[in-house]
């Protein structure tokens, strides 16, 4: 029996598990959309990634001689789900699993497990995969047009072959099956001196498609709608607060709008930025990862603004077509300092100068 028990002696009943589960619930729409678009391939990717994460968590805990009960808090499953949703549908199976191992092993357990990782595990793993295997990580399957080219991803065995043998198993030429993501296309066009408007036109870009999830992209990032629904659910459940999503989105929008107004032919419009790439996923689910984001409201605003600036800068001037995930991990580096310098005003204390 514990001798010294401090007040309070009652509790709200909230738990880590319930927090994590609410995020998993919030991701269900996005996961469903990915299954709708990519068929069984999505199911295979998501389940193998989640399993890899859970297995890594279990094994590392065992190896360290720690209790394996944290498996039950669903955080590893959530990491797996999120990582899977950031992967292209055609990721080879071993890469997906390697990603899961990186995420949990290198991104989380090395630091002591849940709550101690300074960087977002899923995003760290995704960046490792991207820089290690840039080709596979930037090869996008043409969404929904699969059936047009005779690919039926609702066919289990085809999905299985694609999953296990990769692009090589595609019945047609790779080029016919894959396409650039809108961001990648615009970036490539830019290097050739083609303007933003023209590029979007030749891409046949449609805002509606991007909103509901019919442009090329990773499993879970295609549908802004599904992600928005999940985000709203999280806000309503009070799992996340508005600070990071708002400041992140607003910063990207404001920067994009300003640049677009100044030179519409050079810079893509704000709505394009908001709907494109992994931004929505990052905004609602990754930048808000409590463990690797600031705790204080002001800090969260600063964090969001930082993410926004970096995302837009990388997308616009950087070498990589998508900057959201780099932005989040880069800002993760600054979180301890942000937390230190953005503490709330304390009751009765004059605001500190300097």
């Amino acid at each position, binding site marked *: 029996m514990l001798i010294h028990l401090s007040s309070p002696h009652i509790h709200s009943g*909230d738990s880590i598990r319930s927090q994590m589960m609410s995020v998993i619930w919030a991701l269900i729409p996005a996961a469903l959309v990915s299954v709708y678009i990519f068929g069984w391939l999505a199911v295979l990717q998501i389940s193998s990634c989640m399993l890899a994460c859970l297995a890594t968590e279990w094994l590392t805990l065992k190896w360290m001689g720690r209790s394996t009960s944290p498996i039950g808090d669903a955080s590893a499953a959530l990491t797996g789900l999120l990582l899977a949703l950031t992967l292209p549908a055609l990721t080879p199976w071993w890469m997906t699993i390697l990603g899961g191992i990186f995420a949990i092993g290198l991104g989380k357990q090395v630091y002591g497990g849940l709550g101690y990782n300074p960087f977002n595990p899923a995003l760290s793993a995704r960046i490792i995969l991207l820089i290690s295997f840039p080709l596979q990580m930037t090869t996008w399957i043409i969404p929904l047009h699969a059936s047009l080219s005779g690919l039926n991803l609702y066919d289990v065995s085809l999905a299985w072959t694609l999953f296990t043998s990769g692009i090589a198993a595609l019945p047609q030429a790779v080029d016919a099956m894959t396409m650039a993501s809108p961001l990648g296309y615009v970036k490539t066009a830019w290097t050739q001196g083609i303007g933003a408007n023209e590029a979007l036109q030749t891409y046949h870009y449609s805002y509606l498609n991007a909103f509901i999830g019919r442009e090329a992209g990773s499993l879970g990032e295609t549908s802004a709608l599904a992600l928005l629904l999940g985000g709203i659910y999280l806000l309503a459940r009070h799992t996340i607060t508005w600070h990071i999503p708002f400041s992140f989105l607003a910063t990207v929008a404001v920067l994009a709008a300003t640049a677009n107004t100044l030179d519409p032919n050079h810079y893509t419009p704000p709505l394009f930025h908001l709907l494109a790439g992994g931004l929505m996923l990052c905004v609602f689910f990754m930048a808000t990862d409590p463990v690797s984001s600031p705790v204080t409201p002001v800090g969260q605003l600063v964090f969001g603004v930082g993410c926004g600036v970096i995302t837009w800068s990388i997308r616009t001037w950087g070498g990589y077509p998508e900057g959201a995930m780099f932005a989040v991990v880069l800002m993760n580096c600054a979180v301890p300092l942000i937390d230190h310098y953005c503490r709330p005003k304390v009751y009765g204390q004059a605001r500190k100068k300097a």
Partner: protein
Amino acid sequence: MIKHFFKKLGFSSAPFAGGIQPDMQKWTESSAIEICPLPPLLIVPMKQHIGQACSSLVKVGDHVLRGQKIAKAEGYVSVPVHAPTSGKVIKIEEHAIPHPSGMGLASIFIEPDGLDERDTSLQPITDWQNMDVGALRERVRVCGIAGLGGAAFPTFIKLVQDQRNPIETVILNGIECEPFLTNDHRLMVEHSQEILHGMKIIMHMVGAKQGIIAIEDNKADAIQSMQDTVDDANIEGLNIHVRVLPTRYPQGSEKQLIEVIIGKQVPAGKLPMHVGVICQNIGTTKAIYEAVVLGYPLTERVMTVSGDAVPNKGNLLVRLGTSMRFIYAQRGLENFEGLQILHGGPMMGERLRHPDIPVIKSSTGLLALSQDFFKQAHAVEEPCIRCGHCSEACPIGLTPNLLADHCRNEQLEKAADYHLFDCIECGACSYVCPSHIPLVHYFRFGKGQAAQVRREQNFAEASRQRSESRDTRIQREKDEKAAKRKKVRATHAPTPTEAEQGKE
């Protein structure tokens, strides 16, 4: 600025930061105050307030009367202790008090004679309006009144008129934001007259122009009762109002309440009076009325006995010094196996290790909770996931999770930089933490360590000074001796050298 403007227009709704809304469980809100019978033995600890302990005025074997001063105050921040009933002093020794350490304090054991005779040496003062404020203050002091809201701060200290900090507003704290507790609530329902009377005395004493009775909106009958009484009284043209506030923990905390009522924060290191306010608890106010108008020292208080393990919950008027075991027994609880007994509310009260502990002035409630209640609160601590719920809940604006880290690692300077000493230990942060981190416990640990360090430093400083003064003294003596010897040597034969002398 803008906030202030809106507040002026009367649009203020939730003007204190943070806060939580726990399940209030006010099961005893409609149980009338009952009188708890006299126990066979009363144990009166010689310190029941914040400040210095008293020293005994009686010997074993003495016969005492109810209200007789049996221990006198030592120092300024202290109030005397009175005999709760008439009877015989049978021993004076250490006995456990309601304190988290489980340690004891010198206490006077009184065996009641059952007659409950009162000491009538204090005269009732009915025309306090015309009395010297100082005399009234003295009366409040000698009657041993300490804040009954839980902190038990000697009340007379607060009741002063200070030219530099004129008090404009007296706030009666009828918030009672702790779950379970209903004693102030019942007092307001049943004793509104006395409370209002007490309030008038306080306003007279501090020279306040305005009085506000703050009540949360979950106490409709208390609001009604106080409002009626105030309405009747306001015929006299008094500036006293009832303010109904939305229910929110910890609104009852003085600092938060003041911010809500007058829209100003008490600056750090300052007191409510520096913003022209004093804040008194309902029970304290009634005790002031009794002390002044009836001449009764503080010998009893109302407390709530509740919790799911108490068969017969209620609000009791209890003599100070009554054993808690006796009270529980009165309410049908005798077996404490697997229960958690709490002194005070569940948010701020202490957990007691056994019920053989007397009731003191700060005893607002007595709870007995079963496993179901406290297993959640004291569940296994998991790692902080930095969800920020604690920061959101904190009414002071701290970052509890970071602060707790510093306390845990004993980085006391950092903890102080993170405003450890501004924490009011309200427990809102621990309450919401999904990882069940005993944040408040860490803060208490940190504060204790810091106090320890400060004590050690002071002691070291004092030791250094003593050591240095000793060294200089010895040096001086040596010098004097040497000088003397020199004189002697000048006249006599050679003596041992100086160096050898010095070595000795």
